[in-house]
């Protein structure tokens, strides 16, 4: 059931100043309470109850991630906020930075305290100039009030928040690449282990949280973390709270909205997005950023086994399954960033795949041969089919290349390229074959629907 909430978005229409944040949504009350009345351990235990699954794509529980941070005898700890927002189809974090920057600053204060860090860096992609300006503005306002600095709210626990900028590289959204970039290096992902909690920024224990993950923390502590979790339709499976959902592509009203976790894709398309352009039928969706494999409009859930976690939806269309970290994994894709890209019937799936393979080819950092060569080869081979020069064997070759990237790379960019490629090949086999045999040509190929 669709439940609109406005914990994060209430101030979107009221203004981004500290004054509005304090007057209308009890801003900084949660941070004050946490710093003045709770121990660090209590904060982490409480945070676990919120069941905040990381909003950056992988869905790791935030409270558990915080609990990995152990005080180090000599090294400081860092909180690093991921605001690289580069995943194609993702447009939610930007709205928070522009319209509710204080929720981020307040979240950073609570996060720093919880993990024992005195400094938080917010890594923002360079292109988002307005976002950076609003964040710096919020930081200045919070510092002037004494909420940041040596003694926030009078507590002897210094907190500073800084904005750091990237310089145009999708891969810097990957957390270890982001850390290298923060240190002033090329944004190449690191081998794990060590994980950031052991050796992250500047070789010190570090937590990397997505920007929305940290922005939702004040609301969770205001409500009480268990109450916050219970807002979600998926609270019972550990996927709690509220999230920003985006809808883009072929819908009448693309937008970002805040909802209790667990709406269905059909609800997002028809109740939030106003339906499909020209009232066309749905072809497929990319559920949460281009690295999440697509779902076709005619897919149904097959879970006859009563013990299956998906049994409740057995026989139902995938577009009617609540969007959750585990539910999406169980239907063969990923929740990702909760921004859904909609494609109406008439969209050419081969051209859509070509567009995305060009993206991955352009963005591979080049460290691993399977990813560097594979992403280029995928791009070239789809282009060849699209140009009418391909054969049936090229379709098998594409699957082969993708399969050889999977599991053979330093970072998850490899899977993020291969999985959606395999999804297109499997779910639009007929269209690929039509290109190979000449039954379909690029002369008719469209990505827009009029």
């Amino acid at each position, binding site marked *: 059931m669709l439940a609109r909430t406005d914990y994060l978005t209430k101030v979107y229409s009221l203004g981004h100043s500290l004054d509005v944040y304090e007057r209308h949504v009890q801003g900084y009350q949660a941070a004050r309470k946490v710093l003045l009345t709770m121990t660090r351990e209590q904060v982490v235990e409480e945070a676990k109850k919120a069941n905040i699954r990381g909003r950056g794509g992988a869905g790791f529980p935030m409270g558990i991630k915080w609990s990995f941070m152990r005080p180090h005898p000599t090294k*400081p700890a860092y909180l690093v906020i991921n605001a690289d*927002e*580069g*995943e*194609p*189809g*993702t*447009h939610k*974090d*930007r709205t928070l930075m522009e319209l509710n920057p204080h929720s981020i600053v307040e979240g950073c204060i609570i996060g720093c305290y919880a993990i024992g860090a005195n400094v938080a*860096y917010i890594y923002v*992609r*360079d*292109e*988002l*100039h*307005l976002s950076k300006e609003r964040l710096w503005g919020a930081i200045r306002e919070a510092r002037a009030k004494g909420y940041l600095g040596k003694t926030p709210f009078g507590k002897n626990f210094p907190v*500073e928040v*800084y904005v*750091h*900028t*990237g*310089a*145009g*590289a*999708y891969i810097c959204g990957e957390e270890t690449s982001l850390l290298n*970039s*923060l*240190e*002033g*290096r*090329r*944004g*190449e992902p690191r081998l794990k282990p060590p994980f950031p909690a052991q050796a992250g920024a*500047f070789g010190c224990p570090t937590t990397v949280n997505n920007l929305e993950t940290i922005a939702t923390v004040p609301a969770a502590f205001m409500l009480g973390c268990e109450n916050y979790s219970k807002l979600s339709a998926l609270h019972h499976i550990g996927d709690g709270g509220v999230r920003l959902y*985006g*809808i*883009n*592509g*072929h819908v009448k009203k*693309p*937008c*970002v909205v805040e909802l209790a976790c667990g709406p269905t894709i059909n609800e997002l398309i028809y109740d939030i997005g106003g339906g499909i352009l020209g009232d066309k039928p749905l072809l497929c969706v*990319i559920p949460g950023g*281009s690295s999440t494999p697509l779902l076709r409009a005619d897919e149904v859930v097959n879970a006859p086994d009563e013990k299956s976690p998906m049994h409740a939806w057995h026989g139902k269309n995938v577009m009617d399954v609540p969007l959750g970290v585990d539910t999406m994994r169980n239907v063969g894709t990923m929740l990702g960033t909760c*921004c859904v*890209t*909609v*494609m109406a019937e008439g*969209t050419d799936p081969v051209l*859509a795949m070509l*567009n*995305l393979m060009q*993206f991955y080819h*352009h*963005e591979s*950092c080049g460290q691993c041969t399977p990813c560097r060569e594979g992403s280029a080869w995928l791009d070239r081979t789809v282009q060849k089919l699209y140009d009418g020069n391909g054969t049936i064997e090229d379709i098998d070759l594409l699957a082969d290349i993708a399969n050889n990237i999977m599991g053979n790379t330093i970072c998850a960019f490899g899977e993020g390229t291969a999985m959606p490629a395999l999804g297109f090949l499997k779910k639009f086999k007929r269209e690929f074959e039509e290109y190979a045999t000449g039954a379909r040509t690029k002369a008719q190929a469209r*990505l*827009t629907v009029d």
Partner: protein
Amino acid sequence: MAFALSPERERELQDILTRYPTRMAATIPLLHLCQDQNGWVSEEIVQYVAHKLDVPPAHVQGVVTFYTLFNQKPVGKHQVWVCRTLPCALRGAYGVIAQCEKKLGIHVGATTKDGKVTLRTAECLASCGTAPMMQVDKEYHENLTPERIDAILTKLQES
């Protein structure tokens, strides 16, 4: 004449240096400051940044070549970036690119003869909900229509 930051940017650099435990961490922010002033990152700037931050010039050069936003050669007075990635393409980005090429009389990647505009494509700029879109210098233009594109480009040509 050797490259040097303007006094205002020099002050900003001093502020930046207070934020990190290492000088190297200022590499990207300092390169941005230099490029803002000079339009592109010349060899001289690479040397300057290396010297300022006590890092090898090869390190700075490695950073410059990794990130798409650092210009390794001179560019036009204005930068036009049209997002070409799928969500924008579903709402007409390819048409936007074609219109820009026609109006400016150049292909993607080139600069107009008068040196005013460099046209490039960008990968997803986090505006998929307001597509199609383009970035002009530091500003986003969203929900583009042919009329708005025409007006934006005319303004740049007349600048």
